[in-house]
């Protein structure tokens, strides 16, 4: 491997002249605490200023340079004039090796700019700073039989991280970081295929991180109680992991790594084990994490001349496969259940296009100041807030993934089967501030993260649901959850995120989103691929002042103002692109003040549906016990009356010429809105829905006498009783003698809808020869005082 590190002599001289160290007397007591009775104590006062550090993998034909410039190390009180102090006690033991016991006083490390290739000097990823104080105990011993054995324990506190662009920063503060690497073996090894690599075997590693606040703020200022996303905690324990590193990237020079990481699940036996948590007014916790990941062929290169982001950091891997499981998802003290993802990121080909898993990262905002009106005027306005020289990060991402997602509720599992996704696109990230730079002029002077999404082409599909395990029968039911079994679209968006929610910490969102060239499946036959599809669709979606908080009721989304237009040129039956069309649909939505609350626990009831009885034995209907886990979504949708072009309406268009919506005959359900029923002004109730999602045992009765699609015979009215895990391991038996404890499992949807008043101003017909003047077919419809409760159990069609 031939690396070029570009320390210029001048900068090296600066480093040497500004760094100072002095000999001090031995601290005998501290040395005794480490090992042995002798050693060396070193005090270092660091005041370091480095002009730049350059990494290059340029071989004359490929590759380029990555430069970190204006690097400073010093005291947080004044990094330019005050040194950061640290103390290091060094001891060598004949048996246990070298010990270095370090104590770091408050230290700040700054990187003034990070840039790549031709961007150096003109565009930067921004400024980065890390502050810390704490201790580290490092032991380097003989690796036996080869290499070095390293054990390291570090405890950092009062730490903070800041990423700043354009005078605004994303800041993480109040960090406590405790890491422990135990008996890691560093050695040079032959890993096959003629490759010698540095191999790091990691038998045990633990990392505990606590963050008291994270926010978006003016650079150099701290987070506050009302301006914070909240606090975060993470505890991760790994075992039996390794990293292999060797020279050579995807293009000649560079770096290649193979890695294996797996969670140490022994810590999950008590408490939360491996966990991640986010705390606002209440906590969302992902506890008892387990799983493993193998990454092969991960490469690091400097790439050049990407069409939109130019020179860039180029990371790519051949394959990343494994599983990740969260043993308990908890929202505000209520359990949702378990979640597991089995994944395989690997190269793939779709419609003759090859997809790999790579991420290209470049400095600056790639689409700054460009005219993007051909995509949408909101994209031009979003990127006109920054210039070609603005700091930021631009990313090009390409992926190909196959996965299964498994959700387990009270020990009953449901699987989203054979999920496949691939695509590519651009994302830009930068921080801005002020109403003039915002897509919503009513915003204040606060700092915000601006996320631009450009030409993001997304494709995904899944086969269906399986209740039980991978050997269970495939079924639908995803339609009732709002999942599309197959979709493809191109996404462009400008999104702003602010720290602070509706109440104290949290997050606030504004955004404009456009999906084009879209095709969404409603339901499909997995074998033939035929189904019902929304084809040639355009979905334009806008949201303002959407807040996210977590409080004792759960995850709270207050939706501010939403408006959208969903134009579906063809509702197709059959092939997704050429099936018979039902015509076009144009759906407009306009809401203000709507809310969504997501909480754990599910329906949390045991009840006799469609019969009477107080338990499984006495219930003569369908006894459904949803247990203590599950998911509940409460929504309040307040539909507003027409306001300019914002409205709630549904238009169905047929009889078109060449599929042109304007040439067709339309029927429009116009100006749909809610009210409280007293007048047309008061509108606080809206449509209130409570939907609980559970997996539980349910009753299934045979509909017709004869043999079903699996070859199992029975009489109409017989009850399906499970006898084993296989698809055909069941029988239809007389309900009077059925063993109810072996009923099949199903997806249980418990739903309640409440409406005080839903208004439709008119139903209109418009003929193309009417020159845009519709005829009113029905003038005024009102639905009042609806309160409907339902329980749906979803099982395979047999």
């Amino acid at each position, binding site marked *: 491997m031939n690396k070029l590190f570009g320390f210029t002599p001048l900068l090296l001289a600066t480093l040497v002249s500004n760094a100072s160290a002095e000999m001090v007397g031995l601290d005998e007591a501290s040395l005794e605490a480490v090992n042995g009775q002798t050693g060396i104590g070193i005090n270092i006062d660091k005041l370091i200023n480095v002009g730049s550090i350059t990494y290059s993998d340029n071989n004359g034909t490929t590759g380029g340079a990555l430069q970190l410039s204006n690097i400073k190390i010093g005291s947080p009180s004044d990094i330019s004039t005050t040194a950061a102090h640290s103390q290091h006690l060094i001891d060598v033991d004949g048996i246990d090796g070298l010990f270095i016991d370090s104590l770091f006083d408050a230290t700040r490390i700054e990187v003034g700019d990070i840039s790549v290739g031709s961007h150096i000097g003109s565009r930067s990823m921004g400024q980065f700073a890390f502050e810390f104080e704490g201790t580290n105990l490092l032991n380097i011993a003989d690796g036996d039989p080869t290499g070095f054995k390293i054990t390291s324990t570090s405890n950092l506190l009062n730490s903070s991280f800041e990423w700043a662009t354009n005078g605004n920063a994303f800041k993480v503060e109040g960090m406590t970081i405790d890491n422990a690497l135990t008996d890691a073996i560093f050695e040079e090894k032959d890993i096959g295929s003629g490759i010698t690599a540095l191999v790091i075997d990691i038998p045990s590693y633990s990392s505990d991180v606590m963050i008291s606040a994270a926010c978006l703020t003016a650079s150099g200022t701290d987070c506050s109680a009302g301006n914070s996303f909240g606090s975060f905690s993470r505890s991760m324990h790994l075992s039996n992991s390794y990293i292999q590193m060797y020279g050579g990237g995807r293009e000649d020079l560079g770096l290649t790594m193979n890695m294996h990481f797996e969670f140490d699940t022994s810590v999950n036996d008590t408490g939360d084990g491996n966990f991640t948590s986010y705390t606002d007014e209440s906590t969302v916790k992902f506890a008892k994490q387990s799983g493993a990941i193998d990454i092969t062929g991960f490469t690091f290169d400097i790439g050049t001349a990407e069409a939109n982001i130019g020179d860039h950091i180029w990371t790519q891997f051949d394959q990343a496969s494994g599983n990740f499981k969260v043993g308990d998802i908890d929202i505000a003290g209520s359990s949702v259940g378990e979640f597991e993802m089995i994944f395989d990121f690997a190269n793939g080909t779709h419609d003759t296009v090859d997809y790999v898993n790579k991420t290209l990262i470049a400095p600056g905002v790639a689409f700054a100041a460009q005219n993007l009106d051909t995509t949408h005027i909101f994209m031009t306005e979003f990127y006109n807030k920054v210039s070609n020289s603005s700091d930021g990060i631009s990313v090009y991402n390409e992926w190909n993934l196959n996965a299964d997602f498994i959700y387990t509720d009270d020990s009953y599992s449901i699987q989203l089967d054979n999920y496949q996704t691939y695509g590519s696109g651009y994302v830009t990230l930068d921080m801005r501030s002020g109403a003039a730079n915002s897509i919503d002029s009513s915003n204040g002077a606060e700092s915000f993260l601006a996320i631009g999404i450009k030409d993001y082409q997304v494709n995904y599909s899944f086969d269906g649901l399986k209740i039980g395990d991978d050997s269970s029968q495939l079924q639908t039911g995803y339609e009732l959850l709002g999942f599309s079994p197959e979709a493809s679209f191109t996404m462009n968006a400008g999104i702003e995120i602010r720290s602070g929610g509706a109440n104290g910490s949290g997050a606030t969102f504004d955004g404009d989103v456009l999906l084009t060239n879209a095709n969404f499946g409603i339901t499909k036959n997995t074998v033939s691929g035929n189904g019902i599809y929304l084809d040639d669709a355009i979905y334009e979606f806008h949201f303002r002042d959407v807040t996210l908080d977590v409080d004792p009721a759960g995850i709270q989304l207050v939706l501010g103002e939403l408006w959208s237009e969903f134009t579906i040129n063809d509702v197709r*039956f059959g092939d997704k692109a050429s099936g018979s069309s039902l015509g076009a649909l144009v759906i407009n939505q306009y809401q203000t003040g709507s809310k969504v609350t997501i909480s754990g626990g599910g329906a949390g009831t045991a009840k006799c549906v469609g019969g009477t009885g107080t338990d499984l034995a006495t219930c003569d209907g369908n006894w459904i016990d949803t247990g203590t886990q599950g998911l509940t979504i409460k929504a309040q949708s307040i539909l507003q009356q027409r306001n300019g072009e914002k409205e709630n309406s549904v238009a169905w268009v047929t009889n078109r010429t060449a599929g042109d919506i304007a040439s067709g005959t339309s029927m429009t359900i116009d100006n749909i809105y809610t009210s409280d029923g007293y007048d047309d002004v008061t509108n606080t109730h809206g449509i209130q829905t409570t939907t609980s999602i559970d997996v539980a045992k349910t009753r299934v009765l045979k509909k017709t006498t004869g043999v079903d699609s699996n070859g199992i015979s029975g009489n109409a009215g017989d009850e399906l009783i499970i006898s084993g895990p296989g698809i055909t391991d069941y029988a239809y038996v007389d309900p009077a003698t059925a063993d109810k404890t072996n009923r099949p499992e199903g997806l249980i949807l418990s739903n309640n809808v409440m409406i005080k008043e839903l208004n439709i101003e008119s139903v209109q017909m418009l003929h193309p020869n009417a020159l845009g003047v519709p005829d009113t077919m029905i003038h005024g419809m009102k639905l009042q005082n609806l309160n409907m409760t339902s329980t749906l159990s979803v099982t395979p069609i047999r």
Partner: protein
Amino acid sequence: MRSRDIDAATDDFGGDETSADGKTVLEIGLPSELKFDNFSYSYATSSQARPTDTGYQQQTRFGVELNGSVQMQGNLLVFPTGNP
């Protein structure tokens, strides 16, 4: 509920399958039984849009009350025809 590809050679809807041969349809299986327990509604007209409006008067035209069960068989098939 599912999407279903109709094949007149194997599907039998009493002859109706020929008109849907080769089409993909939305199949909604009818429930075997619908049970009604004190299901009722009234159809009424009123002089004003809202009960709170001045001079509001309502006249019930007819009422329906249902008790019992309805047995059902078969599927509802939905598919497009005509010029979209």
